[in-house]
């Protein structure tokens, strides 16, 4: 499909003082690269752009005399399209940092390019834990969550409450494979068993055939190693095929707030899911989310969008401290500085490029428990930052000395 390449959107701040000496071209260019129109557009998409703008404003770039520009492009969830945009941004448009980048296959490609061109990459929505494993890079930070953290949160909680036999419905690309692999490891480690798996094309609208196979497996848990519309369609059609009535349960391994909103509480109630952020966690998240919603047709932010805000804010702080926008130098500075923002609170970044903060195991509320729009989750457990992510020595990241 021919989709519009959105291109440069806005120059956000004008320089008032003298330009900082080491900022290339005197302007910091941030490229938001994500799915602007397809299946992942609601969970990141234009909302991530809003979040990036808020970060630039909250940082006070204009007052500090720093000139920051935000560019936006639609990678259509295609690695070739994403790579081409990344190359053009780095080579021609002099973009300094690419942020967000959902779709693991795309982000793995862009990760390579950022390294090759010696620029910076801040991943919020892309999920594969390989970004801080085999594919770790001195040019990238993996910000919000990853497949290991999801598996560790949702997977182990379910196995521990008796869901010990699993059947996976896996999106057939890098993300699905990574999520399935990490979850399977958690299931097996906790004494569970995987009875079967099926890899469905990405995206898939009709899951009936796969649901039938899952039903036939008699597994207690049907693990959904997919995301966005794939997850919502599977759950919706699962209700039709009597999956839950037949005694099987879905485990949504990556479910965003917007997915729950699309499903409706009626269908989503009781789902366990792991996220790094929810708007209704504390006063800070509430007030930040309220500001976000006002600028994003009243939709509350997802953790992906919150991560874009947090990562851009910290990036700008590092650039300010360093007085340079040189890719690996800024990334190194970011790792050195502790993080602090309204969405994730205080945190830090590990040498392998993993940003760490607590993760939360949420349960989706029953319709009767919800007090209004977007009131969807209750906290089941808080996973402390030091346990939420894969220990550094288990990731096979070449940058980490064993």
């Amino acid at each position, binding site marked *: 499909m021919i989709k519009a390449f959105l291109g440069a959107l806005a120059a956000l701040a004008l320089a008032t003082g003298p330009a900082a000496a080491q900022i290339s071209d005197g302007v910091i260019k941030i490229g938001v690269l994500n799915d602007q129109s397809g299946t992942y557009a609601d969970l990141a998409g234009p909302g991530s752009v809003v979040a990036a703008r808020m970060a630039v404003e909250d940082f006070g770039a204009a007052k500090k005399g720093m000139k920051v520009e935000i560019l936006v492009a639609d990678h259509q969830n295609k690695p070739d399209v994403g790579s081409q945009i990344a190359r053009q941004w780095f080579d021609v448009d002099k973009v300094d940092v690419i942020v967000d980048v959902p779709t693991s296959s795309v982000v793995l490609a862009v990760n390579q390019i950022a390294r090759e061109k010696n620029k910076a990459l801040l991943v919020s929505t892309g999920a594969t834990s390989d970004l801080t494993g085999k594919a770790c890079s001195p040019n990238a930070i993996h910000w919000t969550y990853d497949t290991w953290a999801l598996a560790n949160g949702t997977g182990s909680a379910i196995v521990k409450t008796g869901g010990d036999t699993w059947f996976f419905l896996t999106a*057939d690309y890098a993300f699905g494979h990574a999520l399935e692999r990490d979850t399977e490891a958690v299931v097996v480690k906790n004494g569970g068993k995987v009875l079967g798996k099926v890899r469905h*094309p990405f995206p898939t609208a009709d899951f*009936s*055939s796969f649901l039938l196979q899952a039903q036939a497996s008699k597994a207690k848990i049907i693990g959904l190693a997919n995301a966005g519309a794939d997850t919502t369609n599977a759950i919706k059609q699962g209700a039709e*095929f009597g999956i839950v009535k037949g005694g099987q349960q879905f485990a949504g391994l990556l479910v965003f707030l917007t997915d729950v*909103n699309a499903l409706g509480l*009626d269908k989503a109630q009781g789902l366990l899911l792991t996220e790094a952020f929810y708007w209704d966690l504390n006063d800070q998240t509430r007030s930040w989310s309220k500001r976000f919603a006002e600028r994003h047709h009243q939709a509350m932010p997802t953790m992906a969008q919150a991560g874009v805000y947090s990562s851009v804010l910290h990036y700008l702080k590092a650039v300010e401290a360093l007085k340079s926008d040189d890719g690996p130098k800024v990334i190194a500075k970011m790792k050195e500085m502790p993080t602090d923002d309204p969405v994730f609170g205080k945190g830090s970044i590990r040498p392998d490029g993993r940003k760490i903060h607590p993760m939360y195991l949420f349960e989706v509320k029953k319709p009767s428990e919800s007090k209004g729009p977007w009131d969807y989750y209750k906290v089941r457990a808080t996973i402390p930052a030091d346990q939420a992510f894969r220990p550094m020595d288990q990731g096979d990241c070449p940058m980490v000395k064993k």
Partner: protein
Amino acid sequence: MLLGIPPQALFGQLLIGLINGSFYAMLSLGLSVIFGLLNIINFTHGAQYMMGAFAAYFLLQWAGLGYGWALLLAPVAVGLLGIGLERTMLKRLAHLDHLYGLLLTFGMALVVQGLFRNEFGSSGLPYAIPGPLTGGHDLGFMFLPNYRAWVVVFSLTVCLGTWFVIERTKLGSYLRAATENPALVQAFGINVPRMVTLTYGFGVALAAAAGVLAAPIYQVNPLMGADLIIVVFAVVVIGGMGSILGSIVTGFGLGVIEGLTKVFYPEASNTVIFVIMAVVLLIKPAGLFGRTQ
């Protein structure tokens, strides 16, 4: 065991294939009817299918009218919009090459989908299965949701009804005659332009009806037609452009083949139809049921 799969499971998968084939059949039928008479490759078909689903959603949200009414009113409403499109724009392209109609309808589809996406986002809106059709039956080899059974019955009825009208009635003979030689049919005193307009409206209404059928199964999503329409075009090409029976039979048949692929090699289930299309085009360029002109 049959090919490593218990026969019961295979049976279930065949049935699922038939259900998915229902959508292909209804959509490709509309495309065939339109192409047959108007010579227009209607690329807005996917968007019109999506509009049918949205019409059902609007009727429920704004007017409190449920599924039954939606099945009746949504096709009429979207069909009327189609008629408007034909009268104001497509008519002007009637005597030009296929390519002009294709470009216009493709552009319209992008505009319509873009507008809906802008307004409603990309994750879709929920639409519940109508009360009397919830639940299902255990057939022994599989659990058949009542709603899916309804989809097959409805689609078969509509498809066969359409086939009957076009191939076996007087009205149908006018239509077919106008396809062959519009000038001559007009000379006999039949209002061909009006017939063309109504046919387009009917084809669009078929797409909208399929959209209403799809609403309770999938999310009501601005992009629901965008991916589907490409598959449906492959179905039409395999069946033979403009062949009524061809599009019905290939629609159901390819649904079954796709269903089986989902069991034996799920990774290829998105591509299998295009592989078949390539093979058919090589062996029989006019399609399985098409006539070479």
